[in-house]
């Protein structure tokens, strides 16, 4: 894999790929050229009817192209056996399409079985994948799809697509049918998984916010799958290539940019607020609070997860009984993962009275705090950078 060819050759390359349905005036996909670099998530996004799904389905040849060529790892796969080609590409669709008459384990084992893996290898892989997508194998492997929730089924769908460890995954609105909360969770989980597996992913969505959040690169498609812009989310938001792109991005570009930065990218204050453990006494808490000169301090539970904000008045009311420290103050409501986007964090903060969000790490343990000032500073910085880039491109334009 580390040969020079692999480094220079994109994982997937489309060359003048066209789909012309008989009896239709205009081609559904009109000669698209696209290179998808290895290990990246490339999002195809565009208004409905722009041909994004047709383009995706031509990559694994569920739809046979009328003309043009498809390259996978440098190999021309336009005319190879489509069944064999598809076993090299994971495929996830909005309807998920789990086999209702098969257990979760059997569903995940579909492609490995076709590839002739032995039982032990298949079982180990199923176990590994269920862990990866956060489902306890002992509990779920022998269930049937109808016994799972929508979010769980979608996790299984992703696990099934990854079963034979294909280098490429094609995803067609994979999280489109789930409610907003589940969708956000699935997106975050998937990004976490992708950080480890580094698959080459082509991902179709109609939701520009999802595209900005999930994509390493975004392809904005106009009718006939004509590429209006193909660039990183930052570049697209900073310099929309045309009026069409601008319209498609919609209003609130600045807010959308908040989707690009994650909490871990900005300054998370670690000593702004004092913290105490669950074993501390009220007396100790009061001392700390007076030392810090702040209005509140943060109580962590035995797993270092943020539990409660405690003010001095709460301690008085407790009358100094240490055992009841865990009941004092107010429950921590705004709590964001360090991988959440600034947009998510901002929303959490607006819900919280004192405008501060507790930041937690992967395991839910306390990592610091984030306040509105930090986010506003981040926005300011982004805007300055954007203006900078815009003026430098303009300058390049004149020369």
């Amino acid at each position, binding site marked *: 894999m580390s040969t020079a060819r692999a480094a220079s050759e994109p994982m997937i390359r489309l060359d003048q790929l066209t789909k012309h349905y008989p009896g239709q005036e205009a081609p559904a996909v009109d000669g698209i050229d696209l290179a998808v670099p290895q290990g990246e998530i490339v999002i195809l996004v565009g208004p409905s009817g722009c041909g994004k799904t047709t383009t995706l389905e031509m990559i*694994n040849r*569920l739809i046979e192209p009328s003309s043009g060529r498809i390259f996978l790892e440098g190999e021309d796969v336009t005319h190879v056996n*489509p*069944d*064999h*080609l*598809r*076993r090299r590409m994971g*495929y996830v*669709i*909005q*309807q*998920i*399409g*789990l*086999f*209702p*008459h*098969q*257990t979760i384990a059997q569903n995940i084992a*579909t*492609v490995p079985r*076709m590839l002739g893996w032995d039982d032990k290898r298949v079982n180990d892989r199923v176990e590994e994948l269920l862990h990866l997508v956060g489902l306890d194998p002992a509990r779920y492997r022998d269930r*049937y*799809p*109808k*016994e*799972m*929730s929508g979010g*769980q089924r979608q996790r299984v*769908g992703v696990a*099934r*697509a990854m079963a034979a460890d294909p280098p490429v995954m*094609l995803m067609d609105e994979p999280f489109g049918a789930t409610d907003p909360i589940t969708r956000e969770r699935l997106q975050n989980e998937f990004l976490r998984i992708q950080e480890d597996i580094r698959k080459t992913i082509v991902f179709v969505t109609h939701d520009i916010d999802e595209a900005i959040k999930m994509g390493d690169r975004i392809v904005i498609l106009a009718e006939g799958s004509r590429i209006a812009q193909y660039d990183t989310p930052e570049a697209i938001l900073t310099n929309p290539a045309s009026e069409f792109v601008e319209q498609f991005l919609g209003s609130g570009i600045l807010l959308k940019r908040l989707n690009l930065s994650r909490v871990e990218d900005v300054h998370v204050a670690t000593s702004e607020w004092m913290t105490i453990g669950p074993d501390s006494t009220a007396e100790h808490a009061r001392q700390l609070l007076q030392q810090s000169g702040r209005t509140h301090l943060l109580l962590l539970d035995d797993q270092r997860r943020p539990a409660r904000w405690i003010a001095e008045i709460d301690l008085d009311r407790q009358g100094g009984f240490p055992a009841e420290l865990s009941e004092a103050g107010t429950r921590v409501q705004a709590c964001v993962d360090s991988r959440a986007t600034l947009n998510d964090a901002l929303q959490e903060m607006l819900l919280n009275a004192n405008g501060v969000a507790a930041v937690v790490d992967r395991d839910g343990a306390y990592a610091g705090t984030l306040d509105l000032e930090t986010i506003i500073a981040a926005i300011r910085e982004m805007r300055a950078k954007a203006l900078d880039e815009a003026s430098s491109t303009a300058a390049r334009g004149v020369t």
Partner: protein
Amino acid sequence: MTAVAVGGLDSRVVGRERSLLRRLRYVGVPAVVAIACAAMYLYVQSQELDNIESRIINARVIRTAAFEQIEIALWATALTLVVAVPLGIALTRPWARRVTPIIIALANIGQGVPAIGLLFFIYIVLIRNGSTAAILGMAIYAVLPVLRGTMVGLQQVDRGVVKAARGMGMSKRSVLFRVEMPLAVPILLTGVRTALVLTVATAVLAAFIGGGTFGELIIGGQAQGRPLAVAVGSLGAATLAILADWIGGIAEDLLRPKGL
């Protein structure tokens, strides 16, 4: 999560009720049939049978009639399955889209024709053997429900499931046999059950062309003015039809894939 848990509980409760009903049906249907037959037996025993009656109503005649009827019905159903299931599969493939309505129309005509007319036609024009002609006639008659069961069963399979299967690299053939057919089984079986009951019930008509069956008791009894023989023949035919339905129901329960 709560919604799921509640949903699971609901379906479990419904499942329990359904399995209770099912068990009742498993035992109840044969029990009722047995009681009816026993009552008829006792009644016949209590009667003084005349010469003609005792020639029609005796164990040997009844046994033969039952076997003939079962034989015709089973062969007819088997023939129907062999023809209608592959035909149903073929007609749901995209390449058959043009001929599908024509075949369906033909099958509709097959069932629209009066059964008795169909039987006489086959007997007189094609096959001069009563039971064979009856088998062919019954089979033609029963093609439609099986054909329709197969087609509807296949058509109602979630397109997303088929698309996912194809997208994972399953061949068309393995998608058909490992995904579409298993998922079509419940509806297909309903069609088969209908066909089975239909053939068992209409097999009495074979008596008109010398194919035997309980129809002989009915026709003979009618011709010679012996209502008791008609009653015995009718009860025999009804018993077989009800039991065929009962067995069909059990088969549906047993063969339905888990997880549906």
